[in-house]
């Protein structure tokens, strides 16, 4: 959105002999300026994406046996691998569960903190702190919260007469437990973006609405929320990427168990490539992850396109 807000500096200038010169020799200078970043980007983003595909067509070298071309064998194995399907399904549930919750909470938090609420400085601090704590550290603390019987959640439950519950140890709740941690960790982060957007909305709009007697909900639905749409989209894309990118809490809290109930795609890739040392199959699984991210990118691109035209 700043793209459109920023002064458009690329407009043809009336007087630009210097500008022309810049464009003329700019070719070489521009390329030289780009070169270092481009080399690193190519080496660690573009090359590995291509190499992932190539290596997914070969077998894993072991000991004295080198890799050899196997065509689509790895993909065939993947289709027959129940753990892969389970991890894909889990990841879908995980994404669909965490993203709307985190975004909705972030929006509510931002509205509160942006409003006239008592002690909003402290509240903002509380909401945002999880963002600066490492997932790996807080996962250990959440592990305590979820501990059956004397864990914090069950201790609170006991006050209301509830019995002990094995939160991380049953298939039905383990994934949901991880999702709660994710929402807790991300909502404050997304809140910041909403806060930034809210502060750019002209106060005049609110005053005008108040004069016309519009209710708060009405105002939010018809004015604030539409104005926040680009932010929501931005946050959404980030949330989707994170849903496939962050598995630190899986490593600490469940290691994919019980019986693969919390196996997420990236964690499975990590297991296959760095515990089973089956790098070719790891590459094959990575291809699926790349395909998902490409789909997200494409969706975002198409949507942005439409929105720009609409404007």
């Amino acid at each position, binding site marked *: 959105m700043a793209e459109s807000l920023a002064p458009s500096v690329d407009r043809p200038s009336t007087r630009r002999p210097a500008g022309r010169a810049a464009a003329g020799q700019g070719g070489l200078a521009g390329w030289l300026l780009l070169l270092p970043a481009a080399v690193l980007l190519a080496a660690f983003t573009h090359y590995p994406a291509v190499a992932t595909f190539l290596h997914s067509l070969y077998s894993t070298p072991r000991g004295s046996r080198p890799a050899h071309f196997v065509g689509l064998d790895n993909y065939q194995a993947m289709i027959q691998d129940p753990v892969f399907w389970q991890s894909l399904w889990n990841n879908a549930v995980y994404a669909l569960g965490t993203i709307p919750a985190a975004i909705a909470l972030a929006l509510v938090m931002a509205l509160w903190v942006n409003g006239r609420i008592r002690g909003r400085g402290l509240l903002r601090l509380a909401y945002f702190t999880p963002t600066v704590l490492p997932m790996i550290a807080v996962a250990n603390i959440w592990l305590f919260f979820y501990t059956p019987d004397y864990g914090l959640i069950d201790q609170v439950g006991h006050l209301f007469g509830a019995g002990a519950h094995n939160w991380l140890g049953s298939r039905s709740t383990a994934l949901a437990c991880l999702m709660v941690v994710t929402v807790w960790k991300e909502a404050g982060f997304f809140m910041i973006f909403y806060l930034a957007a809210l502060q750019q909305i002209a106060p005049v709009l609110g005053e005008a609405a108040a004069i016309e007697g519009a209710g708060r909900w009405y105002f939010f639905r018809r004015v604030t929320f539409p104005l926040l749409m680009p932010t929501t989209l931005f946050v959404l894309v980030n949330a989707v990427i994170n849903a496939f990118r962050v598995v630190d809490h899986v490593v600490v809290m469940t290691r994919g*168990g019980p019986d693969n109930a919390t196996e997420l795609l990236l964690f499975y890739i990590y297991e296959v490539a760095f515990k089973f040392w089956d790098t070719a199959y790891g590459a094959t699984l990575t291809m699926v992850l790349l395909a998902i991210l490409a789909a997200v990118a494409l969706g975002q691109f198409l949507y942005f396109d439409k929105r720009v035209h609409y404007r």
Partner: protein
Amino acid sequence: MRDRLTRLLGTALVAGGLALGAGAARAETSLEFYYPVAVGGPITKIVDGMVADFEKGHPDIKVKPIYAGSYQDTITKVLTAIKGGDVPQLSVILSVDMFTLIDEDAIVPYESLVKTEADKAWLKGFYPAFMENSQTGGKTWGIPFQRSTVVMYWNKEAFKEAGLDPETPPQTWDELVAFGKKLTKKDASGNVTRWGVQIPSSGFPYWLFQALTTQNDVRLMNGDGTETHFDDPKVVEALQYWVDLSRKWQIHAPGIVEWGTTPKDFFEGKTAIMWTTTGNLTNVRKNAPFPFGVAMLPEHARRGTPTGGGNFYIFKKSTPEQKAAALTFIEWMTSPERAAQWGIETGYVAVSPAAWETPEMKAYVKDFPPAAVARDQLQYAFAELSTHDNQRVTKALNDGLQAALTGAKTPAEAMKDSQAEAKRILRAYQ
């Protein structure tokens, strides 16, 4: 080649110069030694101290101990190094990674290194239970070092409260159930406040499960690491017993029980009996706020436990001098006095009968008799599950166990699926 010769000559000259006073010239061999830390406490300091002692007695060998992190870190580091980089000469790695290291063509068997009669006698001096995971195809690939087994800890206070003799732990599967029923406590609204027994099932449930299968007198794999027997009726029966502890008898918390929190559950009085590693002895001794006992696991068809922990391996890429020096170092580290010291300071089971005959160990056991339970149980121990492509086969079993324990599958179904998966994985090695 000439380079190395010059360097060797140089080293020899320097060493010779230094040793001139003693009147002997000898070359110095340097070794890098990776080790993981899997128990709490100042392990790195203990290892550094032992290495310093070794160097005092062996001025011609320099050992550089490198703390490599967890077991997983250590094998990762070694496998990476083998594919190009500085390979250490020896390392402590899980005994179950033996087949992986053989498949990677990384290690040498000890038979190719032992020469003297003393060496051969040393090789025969360890508990046979520990050697099961160290030998295959008639060769010895690993030397037991930091090894453990599963034992049973019980809360004497809870036993008294339940009207049981606090000095008598359950001896059989049936007794475990009978005791467990008495030990399980409920509050007025019917919520369980204390379970009878807890057998952790997160992360690596296969290890605890192997205690049950061993007690049911069945092995999970063959000695070559190419075949598993997960769907054997006796294995299914063992799993049924585990599942029944919570399903049928309701003396064990339902679902998957976290390994990491089990000792804390025990300290908090949330379970009266726990099964966990002998490596927890020091921890429990320090933190349990009540008198506790340590016992062998109960028997069914027989007594039994799997072994666990890490072995010494020597890597192929070392020079003959380094291999010889590494052997000297390992022989020294596993000598009776050292094994006793290591066991006392860390809580691991001392690896040879001779170690238990040392005066230090005898004094320690006299002062703290539970330390000897693991030793006495060793005669009933089987090798820990270990096959080719070990981590993957293990996961196949873990998934099946957790499926059964959470009620997603019946024990028979779960083991049938695990066996099918393991068979598929191992096809390449037959």
